[in-house]
């Protein structure tokens, strides 16, 4: 779209009166050519007086008017008398629209908003500490509201709880089942390759069962729930925050944490252990396929070996773990949502932050559990 056609002709003598005749269209498309010509004009002619004759201009838009203003400014800077002649009424109007002061007005906000390294470290530290403070504050409120809800169960919004149980649990089951099934299949397959060498095929069953029930089942389920539902909670509450819906709740006398966070937390606590159970079952089924098809075990032996390997303590530990994971995922999702200020971008950041923090905490909590369980077993 650049329009480089010669945009004006010049009449006059060097160091004397110079008249400029812009031709045709003076506007946005050839503004660059025009602006670059300003300097050449003054160095080449160094006029004692400059007149612009608009008689041959067919079209002038505000960008064209901008060129004339810039020309006048340049002439003013060199103290050369400047005049525009033969401007039509329309052209005068357009030129009057250009606010000369605005062109050179300094920005009211700093151009560079980036910080140097020391400021960045300080900023990040303050943000990190504030984040921890806010999370603790939120947890405190949430626990308070949970205790309140448990003592007044009729005040819980059970319809919401059930709807979130469906969203987190029922809708999440297919993906949890598929991933767990494949995971069981892979674990069995990889370990079978090694165990075959020692004729220890039969231990594939115990390996899959113990590995899933103790560690992988709760973790995989928690990560999937964090990705599916933790992010959804953050996005939902974040958007409500942007649309002032949370403010509306407060104004109407509701406690937003009790109203929005408690049902989500309860739903997660109810369904994540169940999902974890499904995850274990599907992984064992995956392992069984490898055992039956690849290792010539019978279904009966595989199931029996699996039952022998699973002890009640591991099952209970897995359930407790998944409840703790569920609580953290829901709480972090909601907290990140409530923290949203601003617009669409902030909602995106909150969603990302909810998933990343949840997965990080899942790993930290799991490590803690590993140590505690080791000592109490």
């Amino acid at each position: 779209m650049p329009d480089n056609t010669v945009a004006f002709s010049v009449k006059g003598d060097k160091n004397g009166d110079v008249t400029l005749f812009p031709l045709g269209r003076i506007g946005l498309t050839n503004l660059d050519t025009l602006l670059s010509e300003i300097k050449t004009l003054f160095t080449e002619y160094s006029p004692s007086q400059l007149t612009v004759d608009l008689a041959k201009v067919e079209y002038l838009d505000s960008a064209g008017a901008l060129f004339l203003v810039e020309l006048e400014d340049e002439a003013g800077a060199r103290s050369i008398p400047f005049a525009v002649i033969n401007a039509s009424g329309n052209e005068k109007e357009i030129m009057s629209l250009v606010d000369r002061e605005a062109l050179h007005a300094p920005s009211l906000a700093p151009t560079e908003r980036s910080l140097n390294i020391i400021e960045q470290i300080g900023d990040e530290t303050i943000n990190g500490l504030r984040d921890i403070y806010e999370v603790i504050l939120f947890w405190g409120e949430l626990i308070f509201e949970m205790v309140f809800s448990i003592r007044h169960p009729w005040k819980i919004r059970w319809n919401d709880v059930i709807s979130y149980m469906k969203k987190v649990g029922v809708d999440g089951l297919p993906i949890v089942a598929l991933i767990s099934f494949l995971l069981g299949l892979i674990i069995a397959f990889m370990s079978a390759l090694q165990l075959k060498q020692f004729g220890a095929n039969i231990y594939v069953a115990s390996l899959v069962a113990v590995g899933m029930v103790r560690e992988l089942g709760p973790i995989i389920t928690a990560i999937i729930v964090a990705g599916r539902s933790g992010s959804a909670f953050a996005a939902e509450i974040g958007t409500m925050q942007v649309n002032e819906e949370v403010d509306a709740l407060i104004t109407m006398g509701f406690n937003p944490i009790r109203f929005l966070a408690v049902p989500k937390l309860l739903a997660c606590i109810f369904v994540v252990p169940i999902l974890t159970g499904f995850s274990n079952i599907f992984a064992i089924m995956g392992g069984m396929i490898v055992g039956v098809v690849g290792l010539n075990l019978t279904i009966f032996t595989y199931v029996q070996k699996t039952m022998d390997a699973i002890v009640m303590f591991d099952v209970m530990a897995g359930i407790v773990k998944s409840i703790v994971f569920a609580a953290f995922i829901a709480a972090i999702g909601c907290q990140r949502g409530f923290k949203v200020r601003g617009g669409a971008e902030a909602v995106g950041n909150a969603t990302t932050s909810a998933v990343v923090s949840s997965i990080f905490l899942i790993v930290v909590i799991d490590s803690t559990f590993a140590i505690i369980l080791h000592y109490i077993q």
Partner: protein
Amino acid sequence: MNKQGPVIKVEGLTVRYGENTILDNVSFEIHQGEIFIIAGGSGCGKTTLLKHIIGLDTPSSGKIFINGVDTTDIDEDEMRKLRRKIGMLFQSGALFGSMTIGENVALSLTEFTDLSEKAMGLIVKMKLGMVELSGYENHFPSELSGGMKKRAGIARAMSLEPAVLFFDEPSAGLDPITSAEIDLLIKKINEGIGTTMVIVTHDLETIFNIAHRIIMLDKGTKGIIAEGDPRELKEHSDNPKVRNFFNRKIEEKKH
């Protein structure tokens, strides 16, 4: 540009969503350089009509011409080119929250022109000056008030020197003084640059202050019930609905 013919011509436009007819056989013309207002009560299809004119929606039947080009009959590529010649101010400004005001205004300049940084900087400053926001180029939209956001939206809509500017409820959600300022700004740009203005509004102040010509849509007839100068229509329209609208009177109930 065709200066003689109408800038926008709508012919037999019908909009239907399923069983529900919103607009039925609507035809009108908008001329070069005029301030044209589309008015009517809530739910009469004003915004729907605007969305069809700028090609955000496809009509069930009928034709829409912009500068003589039938927009219902061209491909996306041509439509995109045509859209660069029009600007639109959305109800809440629709500024991109992750960009500064300056970047919002410069966006189409960087995408659709080959201008240098310096020229673009000057244009941004000039446009912001026109809407009386000079100095705000490094602010983010979230740091501006509602009226300032609308003015920034106008500056962005004007960045490519459009021949037609569309406004969706420019005074919605603004205080009377701020909306009067926006009206004045629209008038100033129209008189200065000669940009054709198409405004959807039901704000009577705006209508009487700046409209050259108006069409009024009605929910019942699903079409235009009045066309012309609003001051004239207020006094002399033979349709009581039109008179009531312009005189802010509640419809008389039949006993």
